[in-house]
Each structure stands twice: as structure tokens, then as C-alpha cells.
């Protein structure tokens, strides 16, 4: 059967199980759109292509499936760039399809021509410029395979207009031929045995779970390992929800704004078992003082992560789930009594009690987050933005749901939460989805309120309005003598704005109204905007200054009088 390039794209999407795509039309994809409308694929019209990429990313992170976004050539394609980079840094599987000028105009600076495969080369796992329609079926197949297999990541397919229109015999390949691509899955059994020996010999073992645990769907195996040896489990920011956070053995997040007891656990352990994490500077702080007493085991599917930032004593290259499955029977059941009792005692001081005190009668962000946690029973899919609000969300919401936190870690992209939440809600129409955002980040992708309304996504948006680009302000307070250079930020009247979009909204400033407002929002079936006027100059504690040892935390009592 002869099909056009556009039909081949759609056929491939259907065969790859894609039921929703996020995009924005334009001249270079008009043919594709004309075809797409006849297929059983729902197209979500975003209001800016950046949001299409974030939504595809959110969809992918929430489901483990490949998210798809579409944009036209030139500005449409460049608008995707931030979203693609965000997905790349966090190993999220998306396929981005862009239109391109016709092949006979390539390289001639035609209208809306941009070298998007060139621009995105360092931020994609792979990319294609399709110059012959006959290549399209296997390119589509490969793109999805590459995006989701091994260490996942974004793949871009740039399709010139004439290729979308050209016809060829369609035959979707069953097999993939990629001689250079064979993701390592099984860990070396000998190394796994050594790993078990090291674990069995350790007195103070600690597991550090990263995004890789979630990406390989190894949550059950992680729990089984932890419970078998009574091993405490700390997580990176993206590792949050790898273990239910209310689990007895869960220590919470480590790193720059990690919990004191979790960072201390790293500094005191004699064996650090790092699963699917990449030793980001936000986790390690000063590397030479990181986990000084520990032997380090690093399990990762990406061999190029081994020794990149921290040289492990033992590395097992492989899929975390498979490695753990092989490992668990080799690990001796035990209790590690002293070590764990000690840690669990310091975990009691988990929360900074001051964070919950109203300041000058005003709300604080931790109070808001904790109230959302209470109202949702820890079962919401939380989608957080970037800044102080992100750290408070990570600290004060206990994520018990699998894939229960979606956030931009590696790139730290402000404006991520609202569009990513759309992708999450598209995947799970009935799930409780909260987007928690700062007043700065919200204004970066505020236009997506229209998409939310058009798609009837019942997303609850909590704006933590502190009147500042708060995280930068915090750094200015600590390290730049309180010179708040261009960090105060004004906001529109969010109630009027929400009203203009047709979204119910409420402003909350009195701590006494917190509970009823959150509960009311939960009762409303559609989207809701809640604006919380929170303490303006509150800080995220503890804080490890950039480049300092994770033993050197700035704590509230060191900064604030009477705290």
C-alpha cells in the first residue's frame, strides 16, 4: 500500500501506541496536520511549543511511555529547544517531530528554515533529518526504540515538507538494525556477586536511589533490597518516589537542600550503594569530601556515567531492575540495628518545625505543601516548578505514589510545571494532579491556562507567591549581602486572570483559610488556581552552599534570630 510521508508518521504513531500528541501547527507541518486529524490520535494544541515539549516530557515521566510533540519549522522548532534540553538532562523519553523546508531549499536560508538537528545535537540522544520518504518507516521505528531503551532520552525527527507529501510503499519494520546501539541490560554476574559481598560486609550501608530506579521500574526490587537488609534509602531529587516516602526506611532527599539526616547518612555510611544516579554537583557538593568513609558501588545503565564525577570502588553497568533482581538473593537478610536506629532517630527531626510556623501571621510555603500532602494523602501526582517552591515541595510532600513527583532536575527549567502537568493529566485523566509553582515560574508558561481550559484538565495549580524570584533572592541574601538585584517580581491579579480564562480561583493569605481552600479546590471537578501569599523572605533550609561539603549545611538557626 502506498502512503504519504505524513500518513507514515501517523501510522507509526498508532503502531507505537501513541494516543496523544502535543503540538502547534505551521506551514511546514500543514500536510502532517491535515493527515493527523483523520487518525485516532488526540492532538493537544498548546499555546507555545515549549509547552508541547514539556507536556510530552511530563507524559513520559508519568507513564514510562514515549511522549510526542510536534512543531513547525524555524521558530516552532526552536521553541521546542528548552523542552528538549529539559528532557535530555533528566533522561526522559520523548520524540519531537518538526517540519522542515522542502529538501530542494535545504541550506538556502529559506523562509523559516533552521538547522534544528544541528541546534539540538548536544541535547538529543539521537536525531534524524529525513531526506527520503522511503527511510521514514524505519526512522520512526528507530526513534521510538532509541528514545525509550537503555538510558532514555529525546529523539528529534526533522521532516521536510516534500517528504511529508511524497509517497512510498509502507511497511512498518518489525526489526531494528542499529549496529552501534546495544544498551547494556544484564549486569555482570561476577560483579553482582562482588556487590553482594561488599553489602554483606558493610556495617553502615546506605542506598542512594536516583531517577534510574524509576526509569527501569525497579521500585519493587529497591524495596525488597532495602527491607531484606534493613538498609536506609536516601534519594536524589529525581529519585523521589522510587521508595514510598512514608516508608520506615526512607530518609528523603539528599544534596544541596537535602535533609540534614540524609546528608549526614552519606557522610557517615561505610558503603554507599548508588542506583541509577549520576553524582550531580547538587547531590555531592564538594566531591573530595563526599562520603569520606564509604566504599561506593555505582549501578547505572550508562557506562559513560561510571567515574564521570565520582570514581566508584565497584561499578555494575546494567539496568537497575535486572541488577537488583540478580543481587537480592545474594544479600544476607539482617537488621543493621545500631546504624538504622541511629538514623531513624535523627529522621525524627526530619522537619524543620520553624518552617511550619506562620511568620508575622503569614503563611509559609512548607505549610501550604504539607496541607496539600494531607489533603491528597500523599497520593497526588505532584508536578513542581523550579526555585524555592521546588525544594519545599520535595521536602514537605511525602510522595507515596509511584512516579508521584515530576520535576525538572538537571536543567532546572522554570515554567516546566504547568505544561508538564498537562502531559501528566493527559496520561491519567482521573488522577489528582497538582502543579506547584512560584510566581516567577508560573509567569513563564502562564499562557497554558488556555490549553488547560480547552482540554478540560482538572489540574490544581498552587502558586506560591512570595513576590520574589525567591531562590535567587535567597542566594543574594546569603552570598551577596542582601542586594536583591532584580529579583523582586510583580504579579498580575491572578484571580482576574483565572477568571478571564474561566478557571475558578482563590487567594489565600491567612493560615486559618489554608485547609478549607485546599479542600474546596479538591472538590471542584475542573482546574483550579490557588494563589498563596506566602512569607516573602523565607529561605529553604538546610542549604549546602555551592561547592561546599555536604557536611557544611546552613541551617535556619544560624541565620535567623530566635529560630
Amino acid at each position, binding site marked *: 500500500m502506498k502512503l504519504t510521508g505524513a500518513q507514515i508518521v501517523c501510522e507509526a504513531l498508532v503502531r507505537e501506541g501513541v494516543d496523544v500528541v502535543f503540538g502547534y501547527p505551521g506551514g511546514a507541518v500543514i500536510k502532517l496536520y491535515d493527515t493527523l486529524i483523520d487518525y485516532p490520535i488526540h492532538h493537544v494544541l498548546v499555546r507555545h511549543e515549549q509547552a508541547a515539549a514539556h507536556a510530552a516530557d511530563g507524559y513520559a515521566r508519568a507513564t514510562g511511555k514515549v511522549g510526542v510533540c510536534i512543531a513547525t519549522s524555524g521558530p516552532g522548532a526552536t521553541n521546542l529547544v528548552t523542552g528538549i534540553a529539559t528532557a535530555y538532562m533528566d533522561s526522559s523519553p520523548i520524540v519531537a517531530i518538526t517540519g522542515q523546508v522542502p529538501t530542494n531549499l535545504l541550506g538556502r536560508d529559506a523562509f523559516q528554515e533552521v538547522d534544528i538537528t544541528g541546534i539540538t545535537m*548536544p541535547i538529543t540522544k539521537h536525531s534524524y*533529518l529525513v*531526506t527520503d520518504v522511503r527511510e521514514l518507516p524505519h526512522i520512526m521505528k528507530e526513534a521510538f526504540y532509541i528514545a525509550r531503551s537503555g538510558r532514555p532520552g529525546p529523539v528529534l525527527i526533522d521532516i521536510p515538507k516534500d517528504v511529508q507529501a511524497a509517497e512510498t510503499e509502507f511497511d512498518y519494520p518489525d526489526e531494528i538494525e542499529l549496529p552501534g546501539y546495544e*544498551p547494556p541490560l544484564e549486569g555482570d554476574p561476577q560483579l553482582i556477586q562482588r556487590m553482594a559481598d561488599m553489602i554483606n560486609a558493610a556495617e553502615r550501608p546506605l542506598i542512594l536511589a536516583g531517577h534510574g530506579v524509576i526509569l527501569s521500574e525497579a521500585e519493587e526490587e529497591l524495596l525488597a533490597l532495602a527491607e531484606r537488609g534493613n538498609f536506609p534509602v536516601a534519594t536524589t531529587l529525581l529519585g523521589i518516589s522510587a521508595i514510598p516516602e512514608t516508608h520506615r526506611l526512607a530518609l528523603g532527599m539528599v544534596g544541596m537542600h537535602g535533609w540534614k539526616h540524609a546528608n549526614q547518612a552519606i557522610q557517615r555510611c561505610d558503603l554507599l550503594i548508588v542506583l541509577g544516579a549520576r553524582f550531580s554537583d547538587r547531590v555531592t557538593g564538594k566531591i573530595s569530601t563526599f562520603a569520606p568513609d564509604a566504599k561506593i558501588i555505582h549501578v547505572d545503565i*550508562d*557506562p*559513560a556515567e*561510571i*567515574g564521570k564525577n565520582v570514581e566508584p570502588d565497584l561499578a555494575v*553497568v546494567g539496568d537497575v531492575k535486572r541488577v537488583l533482581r540478580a543481587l537480592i538473593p545474594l544479600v544476607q537478610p539482617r537488621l543493621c540495628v545500631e546504624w538504622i536506629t541511629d538514623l531513624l532517630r535523627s529522621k525524627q527531626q526530619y522537619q524543620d518545625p520553624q518552617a511550619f510556623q506562620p511568620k508575622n501571621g503569614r503563611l509559609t510555603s512548607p505549610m501550604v505543601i504539607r496541607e496539600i500532602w494531607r489533603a491528597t494523602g500523599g497520593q497526588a501526582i505532584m508536578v513542581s516548578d523550579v526555585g524555592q517552591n521546588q525544594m519545599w515541595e520535595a521536602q514537605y510532600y511525602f510522595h507515596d505514589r509511584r512516579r508521584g513527583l515530576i520535576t525538572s532536575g538537571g536543567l532546572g527549567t522554570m515554567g516546566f510545571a504547568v505544561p508538564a502537568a498537562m502531559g501528566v493529566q493527559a496520561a491519567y485523566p482521573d488522577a489528582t494532579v497538582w502543579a506547584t509553582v512560584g510566581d516567577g515560574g508560573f509567569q513563564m508558561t502562564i499562557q497554558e491556562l488556555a490549553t488547560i481550559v480547552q482540554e478540560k484538565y482538572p489540574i490544581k495549580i498552587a502558586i506560591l507567591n512570595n513576590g520574589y524570584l525567591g531562590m535567587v533572592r535567597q542566594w543574594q541574601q546569603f552570598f551577596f549581602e542582601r542586594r536583591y538585584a532584580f529579583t523582586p517580581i510583580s504579579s498580575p491579579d491572578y484571580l482576574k486572570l483565572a477568571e478571564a480564562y474561566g478557571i475558578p480561583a482563590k487567594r489565600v493569605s491567612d493560615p486559618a483559610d489554608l485547609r478549607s481552600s485546599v479542600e474546596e479546590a479538591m472538590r471542584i471537578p475542573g482546574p483550579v488556581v490557588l494563589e498563596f501569599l506566602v512569607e516573602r523572605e523565607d529561605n529553604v533550609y538546610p542549604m549546602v552552599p555551592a561547592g561546599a561539603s555536604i557536611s557544611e549545611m546552613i541551617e535556619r538557626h544560624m541565620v535567623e534570630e530566635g529560630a
Partner: protein
Amino acid sequence: MKTTKTIIAWMEDKPGVLARVASMIRRRNYNVVSLAVAPTETPAISRMTAVLECDASQEKLVGLQLRKLVNVTNVVTDLTPDKAIFRELALIKVNADASKRSEVIHLAEVFRGQVVDVGPQTLTIEATGTQDKIDSLIELLKPFGVREVARTGPVAMLRGTANGRGISGNGRKAEQ
């Protein structure tokens, strides 16, 4: 501390592959000292010998990061003179009028070079060998006036029957 590292990489001969390699090298903050790329005995597979400058602490990663590129099929990084041979080709254009000609030709012969072009004022010598050998030839020709040098950068090949199945897809070093 910077160090130089020679690697061989095999890659699918597809548009943009070299750009990907270059992009990776630049992004990871390595420097290209030389690159030699050409077709191989296998259809649609090219071979690259690259000399890169990188931070000593990153030396081990270069091959793994190259190997991550989807179109790169194989990488060998363990290239020491006892395990591999290195050869480079150079064209050296030297000032040599009639009075100096025989002296220059003699020098070239000592290095097993060949004269490939003779002009009234110049001789062009083709020389192959290790980098060191070519460096010293150029050094010796300098007094005559070296006008132009074109070097390919080294190409490398493992000795004996070792076939260069270096870093396999799972990132472990296979038998060499």
C-alpha cells in the same frame, strides 16, 4: 592536567555522523588535535583515528562517550605503541633551488621520503611514518625554508590479529 589520547572509532557512514562526533567532543570540553576519517573494508562503515586533548581525569570517558553516539559502532582506546602501529602522511614543500636540490633529496631519502613535485624554486616531499619521524624530518628541513606542510594526522591499527573489537555496546572492554 591535560593529556592527549589517541582513539579509533568505527561509525556508520551516514550524513551528520562526523558532526555528532565533533559536537560531543566540543560539549565535553575536549580538544581535537587531529582527525583522520575514511572508508573501511566494511561497506558503509568509516573509521576514524582521533588524537584528542582532554583533562587527565576524563581520559577514560572519551571512548565511552563516543560509544554512546548511536551511529558509532565500535571504539578502541587502549592504543599504546606496543599494542598498535601509528602512521601519518605528510606533504612538505621546501625551498630548494638548483643549488640545494640534491641536499634536500638526500635528506628525504634518509627518511624514506619521496619527492612528488619539483618546481624551479621548490621540492615537495611525501613522507610517512610516526609523528616523531615526521616532526624530525620537518625540523631538519627548516634551515632550507619550509613553505607549507600538510599532515593527515596519525591513523592507527592494532598489531597482530587483534581486530579492534574494543568497547562493546555494554561498555565493557571485550577481548582484544
